[in-house]
């Protein structure tokens, strides 16, 4: 070790890399930079082109991996293919053409159409496993005997075998079969049995039995959702008044309705469903909001196309307001309809009242909207309160430091910014903000109040030479001296 150490020392004293110090182990960031530099400087020594060890294409795929090869073999073959080959070469990026379902292993989501039970001619190759324990059990040799009980039937189906379920004629038998399938936890089989029951049982009986078999019920609901059998699904939900989430799954349907009018009607219908009190109020709000948006949208589109409203001419709308969240709608209304009387549907105050938007949320949104329009008077009014004696006072439910941040983000001029920085109560925060946004007056006054000569002197270098600010600092410093003696 000591020899290595000595070598290392020698190296550091003789090489051109001496420039950086590794002793300074404390500073993470500088260490990273150093190692980066060191590594980069090595590139001069060694030619960079030869990654012979393992060939890696630029995208990082080792040459020879499967996804790399797909691109390779595909691009080398299909040059004349109706212009599709360019998208082929892109591989993954062009894949978005059809819906990507993420679930990989659950098989319960696969089924559509009727499960055909006269399925006979399928070859018997399903179960071949490398694991000895999983190789065909003895039971399988009596494959074609016709007296399988429900248990054996379910086992066979789990192994991907074909079974005729027709032998289960009585309700009793069918229910035993279902319970057996549920006990096996294999969604593939549970769904297959459910499809059989759905086909062979009267709806009322099926629903009645499922009510006491929650797991099976969930599988059926999931299956109906996947296959888009809306009517049966809604019947099922209507009949079984138990789980909250099932009601919500009906509410969910509105997302599939593109037409806003129809969507509104659908939501109206949802209000009556037996949700929890709290969910009902959210869904009621959702309906009311969409109703409002439809009215506002119709009006504003008209105003915009007429071209007579200045605000729409100056700031054309980027998108329709339909289906936007409430806060976005409030922002929109603060932007385009700020001064409207409370009576109109599009006025911010009306929205605030209808949806009981908390003060904080309202002020934040209004501030952001008005600041974007650079309507500083509105901003000012937002924080001005009058007490009963007629005195005005500045108050912000969100704290003035937040006000400053939002104004700054909207590029408010220093004069405006400084007014609010001044109002930040916490001295340290105030100083930080004032320094950060170059509100010199505020900094100077704060140091003056703190009687901090040192900081004030130090700050002199931050202001322009010969400026009014510098003069101000000098006069304060002089005053302080005089007062000190």
């Amino acid at each position, binding site marked *: 070790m000591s020899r290595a150490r000595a070598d290392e020392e020698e190296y550091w004293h003789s090489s051109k890399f001496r420039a950086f110090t590794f002793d300074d182990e404390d500073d993470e960031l500088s260490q990273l930079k150093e190692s980066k530099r060191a590594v980069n400087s090595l590139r001069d020594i060694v030619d960079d082109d030869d990654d012979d060890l393992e060939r890696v294409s630029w995208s990082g795929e080792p040459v020879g991996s499967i996804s790399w090869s797909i691109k390779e073999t595909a691009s080398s073959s299909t040059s004349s293919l109706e212009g599709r080959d360019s998208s082929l070469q892109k591989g993954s990026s062009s894949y978005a053409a059809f819906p990507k379902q993420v679930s990989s*292993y659950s098989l319960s989501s696969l089924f559509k159409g009727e499960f055909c039970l006269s399925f006979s001619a399928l070859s018997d190759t399903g179960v071949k496993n490398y694991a000895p324990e999983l190789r065909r059990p003895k039971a399988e040799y009596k494959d074609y005997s016709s007296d399988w009980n429900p248990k054996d039937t379910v086992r066979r189906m789990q192994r991907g075998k074909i079974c005729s379920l027709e032998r289960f004629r009585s309700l009793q038998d069918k229910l035993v079969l279902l319970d057996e399938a549920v006990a096996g936890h294999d969604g593939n089989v549970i769904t297959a049995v459910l499809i059989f029951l759905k086909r062979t049982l009267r709806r009322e009986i099926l629903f009645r039995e499922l009510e006491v078999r929650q797991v099976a019920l969930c599988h059926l609901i999931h299956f109906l959702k996947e296959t888009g059998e809306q009517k049966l699904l809604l019947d099922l939900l209507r009949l079984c008044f138990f789980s909250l989430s099932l009601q919500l799954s009906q509410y969910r349907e509105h997302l599939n309705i593109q037409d806003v009018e129809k969507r509104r009607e659908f939501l109206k219908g949802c209000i009556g469903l037996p949700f929890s009190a709290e969910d009902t109020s959210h869904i009621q709000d959702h309906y009311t909001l969409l109703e409002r948006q439809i009215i506002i949208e119709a009006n504003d589109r008209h105003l915009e196309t007429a071209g007579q409203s200045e605000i729409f001419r100056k700031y054309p709308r980027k998108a329709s307001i339909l289906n936007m969240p409430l806060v976005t709608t409030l922002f929109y209304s603060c932007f385009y309809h700020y001064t409207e009387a409370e009576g109109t549907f599009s006025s911010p105050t009306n929205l605030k009242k209808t949806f009981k938007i908390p003060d904080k949320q309202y002020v934040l949104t209004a501030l952001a909207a008005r600041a974007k329009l650079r309507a500083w008077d509105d901003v000012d009014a937002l924080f001005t309160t009058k007490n009963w004696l007629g005195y005005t006072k500045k108050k912000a439910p969100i704290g003035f430091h937040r006000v400053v941040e939002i104004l700054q983000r909207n590029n408010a001029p220093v004069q405006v910014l400084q007014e609010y920085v001044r109002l930040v109560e916490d001295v340290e925060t105030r100083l930080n903000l004032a320094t950060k946004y170059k509100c010199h007056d505020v900094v100077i006054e704060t140091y003056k109040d703190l009687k901090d000569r040192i900081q004030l002197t130090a700050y002199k270098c931050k202001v322009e030479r010969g400026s009014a600010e510098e003069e101000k600092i000098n006069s304060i410093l002089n005053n302080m001296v005089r007062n000190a003696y």
Partner: protein
Amino acid sequence: MAAHLSSGRVNLTALREAGRRELREFLDKCAGSKAIVWDEYLTGPFGLIAQYSLLKEHEVEKMFTLKPGRLPPADVKNIIFFVRPKLELMDIITDNVLREDRGRSPQRDFHILFVPRRSLLCEQWLKEQGVLGSFIHREQYSLDLIPFDGDLLSMESESAFKECYLESDQTSLYHAAKGLMTLQALYGTIPQIFGKGECARHVANMMIRMKREFPGSQNSIFPVFDTLLLLDRNVDLLTPLATQLTYEGLIDEIYGIQNTYVKLPPEKFAPKKQGEGGKDLPTEPKKLQLNSAEELYAEIRDKNFNAVGSVLSKKAKIISAAFEERHHAKTVGEIKQFVSQLPHMQAARSSLANHTSIAELIKDITTSEDFFDNLTVEQEFMSGIDTDKVNNYIEDCIAQKHPLIKILRLVCLQSVCNSGLKQKVLDHYKREILQTYGYEHILTLNNLEKAGLLKPQTSGRNNYPTIRKTLRLWMDDVNEQNPNDISYVYSGYAPLSVRLAQLLARPGWRSIEEVLKMLPGPHFEERQQLPTGLQKKRQHGENRVTLVFFLGGVTYAEIAALRFLSQMEDGGTEYVIATTKLINGTSWIKSLMDKLEPAPF
């Protein structure tokens, strides 16, 4: 290509080999030249089993991704579809087959390989479209547990947690049990099974039943694993919600690791050559494989990120020194020796360059104000501070419309750390979220409630402080550089799941009965009888091997914590980790969110 799989205590190459054998057997059934049409989702997991070279040896000449339209005109005898049994994929296959030019000669044969299982209903679907008869071979390839690294297996079943807890669909548990049976067939019967949670109980039951159903096929392999620990994700909902602070964990949090690959912004990886700086910068993301085959990565991946910088800088020093050696090489022999080491040195150098760049990318984020604020709030919650009132930072984030998933992670974390939120607090958060992000998210909130991640405090009692104290989940004096406890992976918080594994090994769960009862689901122990010849006689000082199976997902930080325990001197136990899916808080919450239709504009 797979050396890293045999580096651990259990040689997982055998599992990979079994998978390859099955694949070869299938390919050989379709005699003659072939083209494979891939369900793209499968290429990632398959890539961990086989390279293109294996397929090529078995006459696979072309490969395409599955998409509608006419198949490319490859001149091969066989076309094989490798697909998951999903109906929308069957539709695409149908389209492919129907558009095949019947006039072409020679005709091409079609085959389907279903992964992981053949589905009668998919075949029925194909039959209704009138194409089932076009397929000569229809088989299944049970890819249950895929080896990711020498000590890591995953089923890559993204929605397992959601299916179990939201949809009461336990198919993924059935597959987990099957995967475990395969594993036992290769590595011997596991004599002891412990478990905690409802799903764990189910899997254990299924294993026992499957074993019963195959009498006579007595396994005569000497057991490699001593213990199996089945852990339900819902026993520990807290851990995935917290931001992982290990190197690998942060890479996953920020960029997302998919099947051991990560895609990174290319700017930092631009090949810097003198004289051509700034010219054609690559625009495609840089893709890197991350596993223990890379020496440097194996060393740093499980470290707390704050300890990574110093390692990288030391490595830089060593490599620089090694390259400097060339000045000292005087004799031909010395030069020859230097040259022979060059490939290794170059590999080390490029590895170091990559990780320095990645560390820089991460550093940019971890030093940001917002990352710090977020972490502060997380740590407050986990150490039990102010979990019972509306949090200002969360409110601010909502007001600024930060990504919804971030908000949900924090709110759920608060809820879990308070055994549910006070009704008033919960209502407040819900209202703010719905008003800001849209009412339709009521569906997502409902899912989270159903999964137990977000809930009102019903019992009126907060159990979390008791659990935290008994299991020592919060450690104030954490050492990130030279850790002495698993809490280093979250800089203070010791993952509950791993604590359970640790306490099981020593001193045993009997010491924490009370806390186990507070956590959801049953805890249990089962024994599987071994024939007398196979009972293990432990050498003195030999470590036990425990397989920890996380049902519902595991994070990289938890894996790091288990590896830390494996490496502890006198630890006495080495861990192999299996899971339904590698997750992080974001991917987990995402899997629980209601899949909303894309906005119409």
